[in-house]
C-alpha cells in the first residue's frame, strides 16, 4: 500500500461512484443487477492470487490461497454466466424474443468469457 490516506481516498471515491452509478433501476433488472454486482464482488480473486504469489512455498498459505481462489472464482464465473443467461432472455428486441428465449434455454450463450 502506497499510503493510507491514498487508500482511504480510493475507498471514498469508489463508494461515491457506486452510489452514483445505480440511480434508477427498472424492476425488471433488479435480479440481474444483483447477480452481476455479486459477480463483481468476487474481485477478491486478486487478493487470493497475491496471497499465492507471496506464499513463498509455505504450504498452508498456498492451500488457503488456492481455497479462497476457488471460492472467489466460483462466485465470479458462476455470477457472470448466470447473469448472462438471465439477460439473454430479455434479448435484443429486433431479433425477436422467440429466438432469444430459445438460445438461452437450449445451450450456452456465446459470451462465456471470464
Amino acid at each position, binding site marked *: *500500500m502506497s499510503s*493510507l490516506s491514498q487508500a482511504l481516498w*480510493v475507498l471514498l471515491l*469508489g*463508494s*461515491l*461512484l*457506486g*452510489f452514483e*452509478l445505480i*440511480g434508477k*433501476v427498472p424492476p*425488471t*433488472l*433488479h*435480479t*440481474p443487477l444483483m*447477480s*452481476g*454486482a*455479486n*459477480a*463483481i*464482488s*468476487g*474481485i*477478491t*480473486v*486478486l*487478493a*487470493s*492470487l497475491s*496471497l*499465492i*504469489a507471496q*506464499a513463498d*512455498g509455505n504450504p*498452508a498459505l*498456498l492451500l488457503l490461497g*488456492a*481455497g*479462497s*481462489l476457488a471460492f472467489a*472464482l466460483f*462466485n465470479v*464465473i*458462476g455470477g*457472470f454466466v*448466470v*447473469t*448472462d*443467461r*438471465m*439477460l439473454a432472455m*430479455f*434479448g435484443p428486441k429486433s431479433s425477436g424474443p422467440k429466438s432469444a*428465449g430459445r438460445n*438461452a434455454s437450449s445451450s450456452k450463450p456465446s459470451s462465456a*468469457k*471470464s
Partner: protein
Amino acid sequence: MNPTVVLSYAIDLVAVLLLALGLKGLSKVRSARSANGLAALAMGLAVLGLLMQQQLSLEAWLWIAGGTAIGGLAGWLLAQRVPMTAMPETVALFNGCGGMASLLVAVAVALFQSTTGTLSDTAVLVERLSIVISVFVGAITFSGSIVAMGKLQGWISTPGWTQSPVRHGVNITLAVAALVGAVALPADPAGPVLWLLVAASTVLGIGVTLPIGGADMPVVISLLNSYSGVAAAAAGFVVGSQLLIVAGAMVGAAGLILTQVMCTAMNRSLVSVLFGGALGASAAGHVGGGGDEAGYTRITSCSAEECAMALETAERVVFVPGYGLAVAQAQHTLRELSKLLEANGAEVSYAIHPVAGRMPGHMNVLLAEADVPYEQLIEMDAINPEFPRTDVVIVLGANDVVNPDAKSDPTSPLFGMPVLEVDQARQVFVVKRSLGAGYAGIKNALFELPQTAMVFGDAKAVLAGLVSELRELGVGKKPAAV
C-alpha cells in the same frame, strides 16, 4: 519506472473504468447484457494485470491452476444447469462464496503474513483492523447467504424461538463475543481470538438471517451482496490492492442502493426486515403457507370449466403472475394457455408488479424463459388504467400485490403499498392453493368481491385444466395453435 509496472497500472485503470461502465450499463435494459460482458472483461484484465506484476514460481502456478479449475468449473457448471426459478438461491450461494473468499484471505494473512510491529505504527494498525473487518463481514456474508439459500430452497424452516425476543438476546451475545474478538485481535492476530472472531461472526450471520421470512429474503440477499463488496474492499486493505478497494466499495455502495430500491418496491423498511422477524408470522404461522381460513365469509369458488367458459368469450385478458406461479413452475403452461387465447382472438397481457416472483424482476426472467413476448409484460403503472376495460383477470399465486385494501383501508398493514388494481376488472379469477394467508398474513378483500371467483388448486394443474377445457370448447382448433 519499469515498463511492466507502468503497463500493469494502465491495465488496472482500464479495469476500474470498465467495471464502473459495466455496473452502470447493468441498470439499463438495452445495455445490460453487454455491460455484464464488459464487467467480466474488466475482471479478466484485472487478473492479468496482477499476474504481470508478480514473479510466480512453478509451484504457485500449480496451486493457481488447481484453485481455478475447481472453483471456475463448479461455478460454470452450476450457472449453466440451474433452473431460472432457482435464481434467488443461486445468487445467495455465489454471494456466500465471495464472502468466504475474503474470510480465507484475511485468516491467511492473520496467521502467516501479518506485518510485525507495534500497534502504534499506523500501517500495522490499519492492516490488523482490515483483517478484523474482512473476517467479520466475510463470515457474516458467508453464513448469512447460506442460510438465505437454505430457506429459499425450503431446506431450512423458521424455528419458533427465532420469532420471540429470545433471538435478540442470542444475537446480542454473539455480537458481544465478536466485538471482544475484534478488539483483541489487533494485538495478537494469529492467536485464539482470531478463531473466536471467526466463530462468533459465522454464528451471528446465521442468527440474524434465520428469523427473516422467505418474502423478505431478496432484500437480505441484496444486503449481503453489499456486505460482500465491503468484505472485498477490506481484503483490498489487507493485501494492499487499490483495485480491490475501488471495486469492493463500488459493489458495497451499489448493493446498498439496490437494497433500498427493493425495500421501497416492497413497501418495507430495512429496519423492519432485519429486526422485525417474519412479517405477520405470529398471526399466520408458517410464512406463505398456513391453512387458516378464518375471516373469509363471502367466498365464491368455481371450477376450471367455468373459468374456461369465461375465458372463451373474453376479449381482453390480463394475467397476474406471482410467487405461486414461480413455485409451481407453471410459466410454460401459462404461455400455452395464452397462445390458445390469442388464437381465439383475445388480447392477452401480463401485469407485472415490481416485486412479482421470488425476487424483484424475477418474474420477467421466468416469463421471458417461457417465450412470452417482452411487449406483453406490462408494468404496474402502465396496466392499472387498463383494468376497467379488461374482461377477465386471472391472478396466479399472487396475493398481497392485488389486495385492494392497500388503497382503501388505512388500518391495513399493506396500506400505501402500490398494488395492481385488478378489482376494477369485470371478472377476476384467483388461482390459489387454499385460502391461507399470503406472506403478510393479511386478509385479502379482493377474494370477497362479487366479481371474484376462487379456483382452488396448484397453479400448474389449474392452468393445464384450463388448456384442456378450452380445447374441448373448440378454442384454437380452427387456426391450428400457433
